C-alpha cells in the first residue's frame, strides 16, 4: 500500500461513508417497501401508521395472478374444501377464484418483445458498427449522428405517424410491430456502443486472418465477433432493459394481444384503489430481473447510459 499526501484522512473517509450510506438508504427504503408490501394483506398495506412488519401473506401474489368473484356466505359454505392455499386465501375474503388474470400473458409479451427486439438490434447493430468501425463510408460522421439523433424525438411525436402507419399495414397491437419499433429505437444505442467496443479491438488480428486467406466475412465472424463478445453481451442487456421498461409506445400502440407489462401493472390496482399488495407483487416480479442485470452490468453501466461517450 502506498500512501500519498493527497489521500483523504481517516476521519474524512468516515464522514463520506456515513453520508453515502445515508443516501443509499433513501434509495433502498422505497424499493424494500414495495417488496414488503407484496407480502402484506390488503388491510395491512393501508394501515396507519404504516406497518413495517406484518404477518406475511401471499394474498398479493394470488390476487395478481387470478380474477375473483364475490359469493354469498351460504354459497361459500356449500363449496367443497379448498384444494390449495390460493383458494383458501381467496375464500377468506368471501370470494372464489374465477380465472387467470392477464398478468402472466402481459409478462410473457414483455419477454417476447424484449428478447425479439434485442436480438434484432444486436444483429443489425453489430453489422453496422463493424462497418462504421472498419470501412470508409461516405458521410460516416453525418450518418452516425443521424442514427443518434433519432433518439431525440419525443416518443409521442413518433407515435402519431407510427400509429397511422401500423393501422394501415395491420401491425397495430402485434408482437412483430412492437419488435420492429423497439429495434428502431434501440439500434442507435446498439450501433454507438458496439462501434466503441469494436474500435477497441486491434485491427492487426483481422489483418493477420486476411493474410492467412480468410475472406473479410470469415475474419468478421471468426476473429472480431469472439473478441467483441463481452461488449455485445452488455449492449444486449442495455437493449433488453430499454425494451423491458418502455411505456409510451406500449400504452399508445398496444391494447390487448401485444400489450407489455408496464402499461398493465398500473391497472392492477383497479377500482377503489385498494389492492396495493397485488400491484407491489406485480412490480416486484417485473423489476427483479432488471435489478439483477444492473448488478451484473455495473462495470459497463456508465458506458451504456452515455451511448459510449464516457468509458471507464
Amino acid at each position, binding site marked *: 500500500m502506498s500512501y500519498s499526501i493527497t489521500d483523504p484522512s481517516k476521519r474524512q473517509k468516515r464522514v463520506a461513508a456515513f453520508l453515502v450510506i445515508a443516501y443509499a438508504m433513501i*434509495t433502498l427504503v422505497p424499493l424494500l417497501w414495495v417488496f414488503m408490501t407484496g407480502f402484506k394483506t390488503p388491510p395491512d398495506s393501508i394501515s396507519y401508521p404504516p406497518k413495517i412488519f406484518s404477518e406475511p401473506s401471499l394474498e398479493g401474489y394470488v390476487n395478481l395472478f387470478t380474477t375473483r368473484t364475490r359469493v354469498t356466505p351460504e354459497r361459500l359454505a356449500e363449496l367443497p374444501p379448498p384444494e390449495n392455499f390460493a383458494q383458501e386465501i381467496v375464500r377468506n375474503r368471501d370470494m372464489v377464484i374465477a380465472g387467470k388474470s392477464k398478468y402472466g400473458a402481459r409478462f410473457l409479451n414483455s419477454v417476447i418483445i424484449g428478447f425479439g427486439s434485442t436480438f434484432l438490434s444486436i444483429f443489425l447493430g453489430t453489422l453496422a458498427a463493424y462497418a462504421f468501425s472498419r470501412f470508409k463510408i461516405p458521410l460516416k460522421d453525418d450518418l452516425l449522428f443521424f442514427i443518434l439523433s433519432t433518439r431525440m424525438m419525443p416518443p409521442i*411525436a413518433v407515435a402519431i405517424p407510427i400509429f*397511422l402507419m401500423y393501422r394501415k399495414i395491420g401491425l397495430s397491437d402485434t408482437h412483430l410491430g412492437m419488435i420492429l419499433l423497439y429495434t428502431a429505437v434501440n439500434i442507435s444505442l446498439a450501433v454507438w456502443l458496439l462501434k466503441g467496443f469494436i474500435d477497441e479491438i486491434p485491427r492487426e488480428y483481422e489483418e493477420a486472418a486476411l493474410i492467412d486467406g480468410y475472406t473479410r466475412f470469415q475474419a468478421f465472424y471468426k476473429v472480431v465477433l469472439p473478441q467483441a463478445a463481452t461488449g455485445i453481451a452488455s449492449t444486449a442487456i442495455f437493449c433488453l432493459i430499454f425494451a423491458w421498461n418502455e411505456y409510451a409506445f406500449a400504452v399508445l400502440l398496444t391494447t390487448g394481444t401485444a400489450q407489455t407489462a408496464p402499461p398493465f401493472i398500473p391497472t392492477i390496482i383497479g377500482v377503489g384503489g385498494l389492492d396495493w399488495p397485488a400491484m407491489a407483487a406485480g412490480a416486484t416480479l417485473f423489476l427483479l430481473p432488471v435489478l439483477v442485470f444492473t448488478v451484473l452490468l455495473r462495470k459497463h453501466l456508465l458506458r451504456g447510459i452515455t451511448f459510449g461517450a464516457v468509458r471507464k
Partner: protein
Amino acid sequence: MSNGSAKLHSPKAGKTVKGLSDKAIAWLFVGPTVFLLLAINIFPLLWTVYLSFTNYKANRPNREIKYIGFRNYERILNDADIWLNMQATAHFLIWTIVLQVLIGFTLAWLINKKFRGNDLWTTIIVLPMMLSPAVVGNFWTFFYQPQIGLFNYVVSFFTGVDPSSFEMLGSVSLAPWAIVIVDTWMWTPFVMLICLAGLRSIPDYIYEAAEIDRASKWRQFWTITVPMVLPFLMLAVLFRGIENFKMFDLVVQLTGGGPGSTTELASINLKREAFEKWRTGYSSAFAIILFVTVFGLASIYVKALNKVKNR
C-alpha cells in the same frame, strides 16, 4: 510498394482478399440499419411534417384532408395552454437538473474519498435509474397517498406535520414538486456516475503538485476538481435535459398531468391532443415544434460543451 513482401504487410491487404469487396460488405452491413431507421423514424417524421399542414383527424380517416398551411403552427404559438405546458416543463426541467447536479456531484465527490465498501454502496444507489419509469411512477403514487403513504409518514415523522394534512399529488402547489422529487430519486445516480468518472479521470499528480505549491484544499477544489469535472457534468446535463424535455411515462403515472394542468408537461398534452382529442394535424405541428426545440437547444449546448472540452 514495389515488391511483393511490402504489399503483403501493408494495411491495405484487406482490399485484395477474395470474397465480396470491402465496399460491398460495408453497404451490406450498414444498409439494413439505415433502411429500418428510414422506415420507422424518418418516413414517420416526414409524414408528421406533412400532417402538420393539414386538418387531418385520425379518428375520421375517411374525411377529406384539407391543406391549411401554417394555421396549426399559428394556433399553437398563440395558445395560452401550450405556454402553460411549457412553463410546467421548464419548472420540471430546471429543478430536476439543479437538484440532480448538486446531489449527484456531492455523492460522487464523497464516493471518490475511496472509503471501504464504496463499490457496494455505489451499486445500490444506481439501482433506481434502471427501473421502468412507469412502474416507478406507479409505486410512488402509493408512497404519496395521504394518511397511509410512506412519504407522508416520513415527512410527518421528521417535521411533526399531520400526514393527512397534505396531498403531494392532489394539491396545485405541491404536485409540481412531487414529480421533481421522484425524478430526482430516480436519476441522481445517473449524474453521480458520470461525475464519478470525471473525478476518477483527474490524475493524482495534479493534486500532488498543488499540494507542494501549498494551494489550499478549497482552492484545489475550485481550480482543479471543478474545471476538470465540468465537461462530464455538462454531458450529464445534456442527457438529462433531452430526456426530461420528452418526459412522459413517469409523470403520467404519477399525476396524469393534474391537478388541473399544473403538471401537464408538453408530452402529456401532446398525447392528449393526439390520442384523446384526435386532433392529428394540430398535434403533428406541436410534435414538430417540440422536436425542433429540443434539437436546436441540444445543438447549441453541444457547441458549448465542445468549447469547454477543448479549453
